[in-house]
C-alpha cells in the first residue's frame, strides 16, 4: 500500500531530475533569504547559478549543528515570522539549543512523509496508534501525531512514562500500533511480564515504530517475539523535521529515505569526502522542500550507509542502514540527549572528586559514571564515601534527568583522557 504512489515509486531518473530542480530552488532560497548562507557562499565564491547538477552540490558548504546554534533563534529563518506556525527546539543541553521552524506547508509536508511511513507498514484507518514519545519541544511525538491524524487513525497522545496507565490505555482502546523508543519498549515488556500479562493474548498489538535511539537487530527480534508484533525502524532528527525522514517498509531491510524531500550523502567524517553506496560514513542531508528553514548539507553526526540495490516493495527511494554510531560525543540515553560536558560540569563542582571520570553505557541504557576520588580529601570513612556517592548521583540526576550508577574509583585508575571520546565507553549492544 502507498500513500503517494506516484512519488514513492518514481523512476530514479525522474527522481533525480526532481531533486535537481528542488535543489536549485532551495539553494536560491537560502542565498536570497538567509544571511548566514549568503555569507558562506560568498566566502567560497559560489553563486546559486553554479549549482547546475546534483554533483555540483558538493561545492556547497556543510552546515553543522554549531552553525544552527550560532544562528539561534531566528538566524536560519528564510521566511518572515508571520509565515511560521510552529517551533521545535533540539535539545541544546550545552549552551544554546537549535531552533527549528515550520511553516504551515512544512507541517503538512512532514505529516505526508509520516503518512507514507504508516501506510507503507500496513496501517489502516481503523488502527489505533499509541504515541509514547515526548510531546513538546521535541519533534518525536508531534510530527508523528500529525501524520497519523492525516492518515485517519485514532491517535492516543499518551507521551512516555506512567507504564501502568499505558497498559490500561492499550487494553481499553485496543491499541494496535506503538511509537516509542527501544529502551522504553524493553521496559514496557518487563512491566507486562511482571504483571503476568501476555502481550499476544491480552492486547491487540500489531506493530511498533522504534526510533530516537540506536538499537540492534537482536533487540528488534526480542521485542517482536515478546509482543508478537512487527517492529519497524524509524529515523529522523529535529533539524530535518523529526521522524519520517527514513523509515522501514515491510521488508524490514533498511529505511527508505524520502529522496524527493531530502538529498542524502554519506561522507567521511574526517575528510568530508563523499563515500560510495555501501560504505559507512556520516549521513549528510539537504532539505528540498522546506519553506521556513532550508538547510544545506547538514552534518547529522549519525554514522550509517546507503544500502545498494532495489527494494522488493517497489519504492525507488534508496535505503539507509541502521544508525551504527555517532561521530560526536553526544549520548542518547532513554531518549534523552546528554553531553559528557554536562556530567563533567557536575563532577567538577564537587570537591571530593578528582579530575578524571568515565561514562560507561551498557545494555538497557544503563549508565555508569566512574569517578576518581580526591586523595587529599579521603579520611578513611566509608560513610563519607557513601554520602559522596549519593551526592554525585543526585546532582547528576537533576542535571541530566537520568539516574546513573556512580562508581568511586581510586585516583589514577582511569586512562588519562586525550579527548572527549575516551570519556564515553558505549557497550550498548542495542
Amino acid at each position, binding site marked *: 500500500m502507498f500513500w503517494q504512489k506516484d512519488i514513492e515509486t518514481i523512476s530514479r531518473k525522474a527522481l533525480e531530475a526532481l531533486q535537481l530542480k528542488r535543489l536549485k530552488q532551495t539553494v536560491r532560497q537560502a542565498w536570497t533569504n538567509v544571511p548566514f548562507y549568503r555569507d558562506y557562499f560568498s566566502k567560497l565564491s559560489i553563486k546559486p547559478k553554479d549549482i547546475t547538477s546534483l554533483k555540483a552540490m558538493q561545492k556547497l558548504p556543510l552546515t553543522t549543528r554549531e552553525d544552527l546554534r550560532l544562528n539561534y533563534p531566528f538566524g536560519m529563518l528564510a521566511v518572515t515570522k508571520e509565515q511560521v506556525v510552529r517551533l521545535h527546539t533540539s535539545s541544546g543541553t550545552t549552551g544554546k539549543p537549535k531552533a527549528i521552524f515550520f511553516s504551515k506547508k512544512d507541517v503538512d509536508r512532514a505529516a505526508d512523509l509520516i503518512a507514507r511511513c504508516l501506510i507503507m507498514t500496513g496501517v489502516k484507518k481503523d488502527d489505533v496508534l499509541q504515541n509514547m514519545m515526548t510531546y513538546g519541544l521535541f519533534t518525536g511525538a508531534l510530527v508523528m501525531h500529525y501524520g497519523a491524524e492525516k492518515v485517519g487513525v485514532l491517535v492516543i497522545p499518551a507521551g512516555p512514562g506512567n507504564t501502568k496507565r499505558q497498559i490500561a490505555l492499550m487494553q481499553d482502546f485496543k491499541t494496535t500500533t506503538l511509537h516509542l523508543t527501544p529502551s522504553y519498549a524493553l521496559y514496557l515488556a518487563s512491566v507486562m511480564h511482571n504483571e503476568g500479562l501476555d502481550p499476544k493474548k491480552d492486547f491487540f498489538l500489531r506493530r511498533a515504530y522504534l526510533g530516537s535511539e540506536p538499537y540492534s537487530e537482536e533487540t528488534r527480534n526480542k521485542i517482536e517475539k515478546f509482543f508478537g508484533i512487527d517492529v519497524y525502524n524509524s529515523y529522523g532528527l529535529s533539524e530535518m523535521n523529526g521522524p519520517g525522514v527514513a523509515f522501514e517498509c515491510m521488508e524490514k531491510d533498511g529505511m527508505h529515505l524520502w529522496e524527493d524531500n531530502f538529498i542524502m550523502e554519506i561522507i567521511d567524517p574526517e575528510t568530508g569526502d563523499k563515500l560510495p553506496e555501501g560504505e559507512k560514513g556520516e549521513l549528510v542531508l539537504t532539505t528540498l522542500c522546506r519553506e521556513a528553514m532550508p538547510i544545506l548539507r547538514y552534518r547529522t553526526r549519525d554514522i550509517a550507509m546507503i544500502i545498494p540495490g532495489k527494494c522488493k516493495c517497489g519504492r525507488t527511494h534508496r535505503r539507509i542502514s541502521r544508525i551504527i554510531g555517532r561521530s560526536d560525543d553526544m549520548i542518547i540515553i532513554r531518549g534523552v540527549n546528554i553531553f559528557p560536558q554536562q556530567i563533567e560540569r557536575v563532577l567538577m563542582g564537587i570537591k571530593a572528586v578528582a579530575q578524571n571520570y568515565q561514562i560507561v553505557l551498557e545494555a538497557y541504557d544503563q549508565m555508569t559514571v566512574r569517578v576518581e576520588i580526591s586523595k587529599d580529601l579521603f*579520611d578513611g570513612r566509608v560513610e563519607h*564515601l557513601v554520602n559522596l556517592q549519593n551526592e554525585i548521583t543526585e546532582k547528576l540526576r537533576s542535571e541530566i534527568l537520568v539516574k546513573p550508577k556512580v*562508581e568511586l574509583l581510586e585516583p589514577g585508575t582511569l586512562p588519562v583522557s586525550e579527548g572527549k571520546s575516551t570519556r564515553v565507553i558505549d557497550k550498548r549492544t542495542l
Partner: protein
Amino acid sequence: MKQLKQISIFSENKPGRLKKITKVLAEEGVNILAINIASSNGFGVIKFIVDKCELAYQKLKQKGFTVSLNEVLAIELVDRPGGLFEVATMLSEKKINIENAYVLILGSRKKAFLIVDVDDIEKAKKLLKHENLRFFKAHKNVKRETV
C-alpha cells in the same frame, strides 16, 4: 591514654587489591596487627593496625594509594563472656557512636582490644578518661614501637 593510629586505604572492590596493598607492607617489613575491610556499593575501605604505622603510611602514599591516618580508641576486652558487653555498655552510656569497630588480638589471645573508630576522638577520650577501662599501650604491646 596512648595514641593508636589506624591506616585506612580506599580501594575498588575487585580482585587483587588487597594483595597489592599487603605487598607494600610485606616489603617494608611492616607487621599487621589487625585488619578490617568495609565495603559498600563497589568500593571498600581497608583498615589496618600495624606496628610501624608512620612508615607504612608514608610508603603506601608514595606508591600512590589513597590512604589516610587517624587515631582510634583501643579498649581492652576481658577474655570472658560479657567482656564486650561491658565495653559496649560504657560506650552507650557516654553516647559515643561507633563508626566502625574491630578486634585486635595480641600475644596469642592473651590480650584483645576493641578498636573503635569514632566521629570525634578527642571528645570520646575525654568522656572515657575516668572510666574503669584499660586502653592499648603501644610501648608495652608492640615491640618496635613507632606508633
